[in-house]
């Protein structure tokens, strides 16, 4: 590979090659043809990214383990976690909806965090983990299908609907999902391709 190609960047959206120059902080490089973002001057550093990922993992685990909503209907109380909701859907015979919910709200976000941890911890220590390339590829897919933010808004919406029927209250899980939603967005903004810059 020539030096020339090293300083090139290809627009993901339209395939146009651009000559790359280091970006000033807070500047954004856009494709000259299709105006898609080529890169940002501001990047999260590896330690920042790692600490955000650890925080998000803790928050996400709290969200999974605690009640998202609780309901009191004529003295009968009911609380519900995300895994509980998925298994309830499965028991009622809506297996495909249960699987879809499990993939988008549970498995993809778990991979999104777990694979990042698996990759970032060794990178921070200066080593390249086994199967790094495959992990990055899988992370691209996990990011596409992870819908924590949609689930959070969906839970809020359900809360509003339930409150017209009975005494409904948000649980700690809803708060955790709200925090996870923000952290996921921050982690995602760092992108994935830059992980390869650490490997050279």
């Amino acid at each position, binding site marked *: 590979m020539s030096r020339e190609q090293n300083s090139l*960047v290809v627009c993901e959206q339209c*395939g146009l090659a651009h000559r790359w120059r280091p970006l000033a902080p*807070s500047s954004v490089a856009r494709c000259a043809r299709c105006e898609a973002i080529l890169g940002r001057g501001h990047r999260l550093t590896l330690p920042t990214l790692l600490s955000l990922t650890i925080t998000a993992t803790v928050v996400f685990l709290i969200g999974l383990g605690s009640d998202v909503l609780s309901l009191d209907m004529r003295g009968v109380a009911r609380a519900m976690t995300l895994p*509980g909701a998925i298994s309830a859907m499965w028991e009622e015979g809506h297996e495909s909806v249960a699987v879809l919910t499990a993939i988008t709200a549970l498995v993809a976000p778990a991979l999104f965090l777990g694979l990042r941890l698996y990759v970032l911890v060794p990178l921070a220590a200066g080593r390249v983990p086994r199967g790094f390339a495959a992990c990055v590829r899988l992370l691209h897919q996990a990011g596409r299908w992870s819908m924590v933010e949609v689930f959070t808004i*969906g*839970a809020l*919406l359900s809360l509003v609907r339930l409150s017209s029927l009975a005494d409904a209250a948000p649980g700690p899980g809803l708060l955790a999902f709200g925090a996870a939603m923000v952290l996921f967005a921050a982690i995602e903004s760092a992108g994935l391709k830059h992980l390869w810059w650490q490997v050279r």
Partner: protein
Amino acid sequence: MSAAPVASPADAGLPPVLGCESCGLVSADALAGAEMEPAGRPPRIQKCSRCGHVLHARKPMSVQRTWACVLAAAVLYLPANVLPIMTTVSALQREEHTLIGGILELWADGSWGLSVIVFIASIAVPVLKIGVLGLLAWTTRHAPAWRRLERAKLYRLVETVGHWSMLDVYVVVLLGATIRFGPLASVQAGPGLLAFASVVVLTMLATYAFDPKLIWDDPAPVARHGALPANATETAHAGRSA
């Protein structure tokens, strides 16, 4: 904040290059201009020298796969709207709710803001996705030079908002899981929900199947000269994407 022109288009004299979708490394397109392999032989593929990801000039069979998913989504869109997505049972009555019915109920209850959010997520976004992806797939073949920048921006819009239509699926799952008081009060998912969830997944698959680089392709010049067989355009496409 203004977009500083920090990256400039590379010279036209450069050999064709490919960017790796996974790691971003730019490699020379080794298969550019290569003849298509004779039928029966496996197609030649180029892999990224850094991460081993397969490099494509264009996603293979992009337009065909996009059409397949868009048409399937359009067909399922009908049952998704006609069949009930949720059934509520109370001591007095049993009610079936469709997608639009739920939005109208919210509106009638006075939650206008919420009903607008649900309308955007459940009705506007799926229709937008089916319409835009159909338009993109059609114009790629039939009007390649038409409003390229606007089409590229439409694609990015669909890519960004696509997964928000899962909202109603989650609401029904959460309501169904919470309200389980037997015959006194319960909420069950209806057959429309499965159709609607399929529409969401299929439109997302269609979005990822479509290659936005096709928007910027010029019709193959060989086709205009007419000196080659009628399937020359197809051959050129297949050769590049193999």
